[in-house]
């Protein structure tokens, strides 16, 4: 076994995430991590800059990296060695972050994904939410802004709710109007947020069930993993569903895709080297 350096770059719709790993067989050491919000910038340029940044931080040069693995919307990233698709990488990344993970919920700005994995990070089944943006991260973000609440406050506020208000509309746009109505009826922000969390949680629980997840740990990855209110609402929904699933988050959840890419990159690199040797 030789020691190699691999990079994982995850271009999402909201941010670019970059990590560097030193991998030796099954041993992986995390060297650097970077996030950059895209905010109307060119994501590929941003990925390039982030990558440079991460290398500098780790004291490495481009030439030191054996495999640059991209994931997310990065099939066209010029300097990547190979591309893995999001659900492949989120599964692996989640296992790295918490080896007990059996299902992954990746909730980004627009799409939600549920992935069932085994202990090695192998994807057993998965499903993405549909083309309609109801219950997406973007929607929550809009509402929070409207309510004047910062993203990192959402979670704790939601958990202060005493009488969550149901959001009835399916459409994210009409739901916004619902929420505006609620404000004018004097419903408090915690109750509104919790209401949204609950409706999202029901959908997510359904998504989990549809991929056949019935027990074990669900690791939340992606941008909304840090929303403690959503995690709490999801756990309540799972209890109500009487399934033996527990949802958790991880402080580095947002990197799951990039981590997974980096680690699969190492796996692939090794396989390729073996093939070359054999040839």
């Amino acid at each position: 076994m030789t020691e190699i350096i691999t990079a994982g770059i995850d271009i999402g719709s909201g941010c670019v995430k970059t990590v560097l790993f030193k991998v030796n067989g099954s041993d992986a050491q995390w060297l650097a991590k970077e996030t950059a919000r895209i905010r109307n910038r060119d994501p590929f340029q941003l990925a390039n800059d982030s990558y440079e940044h991460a290398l500098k931080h780790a004291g490495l040069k481009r030439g030191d990296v054996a495999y640059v693995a991209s994931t997310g919307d990065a099939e066209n990233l010029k300097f990547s060695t190979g591309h893995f698709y999001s659900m492949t990488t989120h599964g692996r990344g989640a296992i790295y972050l918490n080896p007990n993970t059996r299902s992954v919920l990746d909730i980004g700005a627009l799409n939600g994904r549920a992935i069932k994995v085994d202990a090695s990070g192998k994807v057993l089944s998965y499903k993405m939410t549909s083309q309609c943006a109801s219950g997406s991260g973007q929607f929550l973000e809009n509402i929070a802004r409207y309510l004047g609440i910062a993203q990192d406050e959402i979670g704790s506020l939601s958990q202060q709710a005493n009488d969550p208000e149901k959001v009835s509309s399916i459409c994210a746009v009409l739901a916004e109007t619902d929420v505006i109505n609620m404000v004018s009826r004097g419903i408090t922000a915690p109750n509104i947020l919790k209401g949204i969390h609950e409706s999202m949680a029901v959908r997510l629980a359904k998504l989990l069930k549809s991929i056949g997840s019935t027990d074990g740990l669900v690791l939340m990855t992606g941008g909304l993993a840090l929303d403690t209110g959503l995690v709490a609402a999801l756990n309540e929904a799972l209890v109500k569903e009487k399934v033996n699933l527990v949802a958790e988050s991880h402080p580095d959840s947002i990197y799951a895709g990039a981590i997974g890419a980096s680690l699969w990159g190492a796996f692939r690199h090794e396989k390729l080297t073996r093939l070359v040797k054999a040839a």
Partner: protein
Amino acid sequence: MSEAIKEKSMLLQKDMISRNYEAITSKHETGRKVASTFVPGNLNELLMCFDIVNNLPEINAIQNGMRKVSGNYILEAEKHGHSEDVCTYVKADIGMMGKGNIAPNGKPFPNPDVLLLSYTGCYTFMKWFELLREQYKCPTLMLHVPYEGDGHSTKNMRDYIVKQLKEVVIPGLEQVSGVKFDIDRLRQYLKNSAKAEDGLVWCLEQGKIKPSPIDAYFGGVYYIGPMFTAFRGTPESIVYYEELMKEVQARIDNKLGPVTPDGTPFNDQKYRLVVEGPPNWTNFREFWKMFYDEGAVVVASSYTKVGGMYDLGFRHDPDHPLETLADYCLGCYTNRNLPTRVDILAKYVEEYEADGLLINSIKSCNSFSAGQLMIMKEVEKRTGKPGAFIESDLVDPRYFSAANIKNRLESYFQMIEQKRRGTGKAA
């Protein structure tokens, strides 16, 4: 519908339904066989010939919708891989199984002994029973009823159905039940049917009177109950329709409108509507209220014809028992092609002197819904009366948006009102 005020006919019907559920859920004690089958094209008289009890999954879905449990059943089915896009009757049924398959009387549903797939007017029925068959692994008898694509049935279609009845359905039912088929028994039941059918038609036609003594949609779903379900051909259904006729006659004599769930007669009828499409069940009362609060009464509807178009003259005919069953299946409302549906609705608007056609378009139901916008256009064109279009679902509460429907209904009624007053003097 617990606190609703009930008339005698409604109590009779309620009793019939609960006795049927009793019969179904007690099949292990009584040893009777149970068939699942559908409303449109149901062969109740035939099942009776084999002493088979009739369980109708659509009716269960309706019951669950009204009891507000269908939403959960649908979610349950979706969790098991059913798409959000498909018919919610199917999902409510499958989901109910997933949740223990409890009948409205609180007892568990027994597995059916036979699935009688006599499907007419809707393609989904076929898939529905393929799905149930996968669960129950019980014998499934398919009766394919061809669609009247050219607006009429043909001899070939009729022969095809009769042949299936003779060679597939009847032998199949004999085998399941162990009872030998007796065509004279069938004739007797068909005679009962025809009598009850006369009663139903008479009641529905009273919508022509002003004020209308019936509501042919919200009330109509009760009036058709026995005829469309497990009671066609029974003596009880004759009694039911006699009672119903008496009630309607009494209202006519006193110039009263139909009784609303609040228990008051609905006399102040400002708008007369013809309605196309099934109702929403999850919010049935709220939905109805939106109409009578605004003074709108439904004088004719197509939904009350899904289980047979008796008002156009068809009656079960004891002299041609199998042929009459074939004709019955072919003639159900949704088995008629779109031009025929337009003819029927336009005729209703005219004969019942309605202010216009209202379409309640059901997300679930392609059989009804695909083409309804064309139907509306055509009926408007033919009758010169304005149409309106609302959207909801049968048993999926997620698709009932009260504000949206109310908005459209109000706009529609205000529009009719404004038009009536002629120049824009309306306020």
